[in-house]
């Protein structure tokens, strides 16, 4: 368990003081795992508990991976410097969830490791998942203070791998979907937002308007990703999928959800901005 130092050191800031923000983050990172464990214990995971646990841990591996990539943009958009040191913890948590996800898969195969190996070799989506897992574990194991110091500038370069690894994780997500890829498309939309923010010129980032603009751009990208997936990977008419975005009777479709999420963020950022200009106290 060298990845997880001790909980005590995790919730302390660099100067060794207890940090409520870190404690809350740690609690959030652990909550899904606890939820899965409790549900498993009380038989609350439904008819196929192991598969349900596979899905939940896979989901959270991806969510936390995206959250770790979201730290930098959120710091800027929300002008919230103190979240930066949380990134490492979030990233490591993502790798842990991916690791547990893999172990649960092995459990599902009743620990027939030969089957696990041959399935990984034979099923493309598992091969993709496996490569992603190796990458995430490499990043997690190089995230100790010692390794960071030892790798120096190369550390930053190495950890840029988080981006291609996210693409692979999303690919795994899409590939394992049955007919409906909505959940995967939504997550891809979050990633699109993060990537679009990265290509936003630095000068523009100082203004308020790139954030709502990004919401629209990310929503369009989301719709495009979905269109492409249905068009290329299924026999569903992608035009019908595209036009379904205009119909909200079935609840928001992924592109619409991304738009709403992006606009909500813009709203929060705007409120924070106003509040600060009026001399409000810095948020924790």
């Amino acid at each position: 368990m060298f990845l997880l130092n001790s909980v005590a050191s995790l919730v302390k800031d660099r100067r060794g003081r207890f940090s409520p923000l870190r404690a809350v983050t740690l609690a959030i990172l652990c909550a899904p795992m606890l939820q899965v464990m409790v549900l498993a214990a009380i038989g609350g995971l439904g008819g196929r508990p192991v598969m349900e646990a596979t899905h939940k841990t896979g989901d959270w591996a991806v969510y936390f991976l995206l959250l770790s990539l979201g730290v930098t943009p959120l710091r800027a958009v929300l002008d919230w410097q103190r979240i930066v040191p949380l990134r490492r913890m979030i990233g490591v948590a993502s790798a842990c969830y991916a690791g547990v996800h893999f172990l649960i898969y092995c459990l599902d195969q009743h620990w027939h490791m030969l089957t696990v190996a041959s399935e990984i070799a034979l099923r493309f989506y598992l091969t993709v998942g496996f490569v992603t897992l190796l990458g995430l574990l490499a990043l997690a194991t190089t995230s100790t203070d010692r390794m960071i110091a030892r790798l120096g500038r190369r550390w930053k370069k190495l950890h840029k791998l988080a981006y291609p690894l996210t693409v692979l994780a999303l690919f795994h997500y899409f590939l394992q979907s049955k007919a409906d890829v909505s959940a995967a498309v939504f997550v891809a939309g979050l990633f699109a937002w993060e990537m679009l923010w990265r290509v936003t010129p630095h000068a523009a980032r100082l203004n308020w308007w790139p954030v709502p603009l990004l919401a629209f751009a990310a929503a369009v990208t989301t719709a495009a990703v979905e269109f492409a997936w249905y068009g290329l990977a299924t026999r569903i008419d992608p035009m019908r999928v595209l036009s379904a975005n205009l119909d909200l009777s079935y609840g928001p479709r992924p592109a619409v959800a991304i738009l709403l999420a992006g606009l909500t963020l813009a709203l929060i950022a705007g409120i924070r901005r106003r509040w600060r200009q009026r001399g409000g106290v810095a948020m924790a």
Partner: protein
Amino acid sequence: MLIGKRRGWEIAERLATPEALMLGRRAALGGALAGGAALAAAPAQAQWNLFGSNAASNAPPVVLKPLTAPRLDRYPAGRAISAEADATSYNNYYEFGLSKSVAGAARALPINPWSIEFTGMVEKPRTIGFDDLMKQVTLEERVYRHRCVETWAMTVPWTGFPLSKLVEIAKPTASAKYMVFTTLADPKTMPGLGQRFYPWPYTEGVTMAEAANELAFITVGMYGKTLPPQNGAPLRLTLPWKYGFKSAKSIVKVSFTDKRPVSFWEALQDSEYGFWANVNPTVPHPRWSQATETLLGNDDRVPTQIWNGYGEWVAGMYTGLTKERLFV
């Protein structure tokens, strides 16, 4: 190949978990409650589901009526019957949402009154009321193994009558080659239809030979009660040697044709879900292996059998069809 030569589908005794024992284990876990299994299903129902509403409908809980019929032992299941709570809470019914927890949403299914339309190549197109139909058939109970293409499986006591009886009642003409089943598509009660890009309504089809096979069954009940909505009330198809998606639910229309129908899943993705869809462990789904299956409720993983173990009754229908993708 060893598979298929065996009579029925015998499995090692230790693999068969008696229902009582299974329920007992769950109840113990759930806090020694008698209704442990039912309780266990509840949190799964409340699953967070971002896309595709599967919220419980406002409809009152469905009251299932007792429906008992003599059990036919000709097709031994060879393994323990699945817990009713699992078989009725882990369902694919896309009309009511994309998760497995559709039981709540499916309560809205308008089963009263219900009628079935006979159309296409029949002597006389007509519509028959469900109660009317029930008067013309003799019910029996059969315990069948059910194998989903997604690799889960269950063992269920179905109540119903042979599909051949329905054919007899519908009276197709001699030129009919296929029998096609259509599921209800009611936008008022089925939120899933809002996913307009799916090829609704759900349709499935079989050849006339398959329809005449003694295993092909029309199900109107399970576990000694009428069918719950999520399992396809009031009547559904049950084809135990094929992947589960072939067994269309909540049938409102039966038509006969000489052209091979394109079914719902085939229209979505013919490379993964074809017309035949016969169970075969050696033919993997393009994305996963079909070699083994997990039993609902206890996660036991058991080997999958060709024709889902029903080769002795069905394999003969497919000799000579070597050019067909029989197992996709």
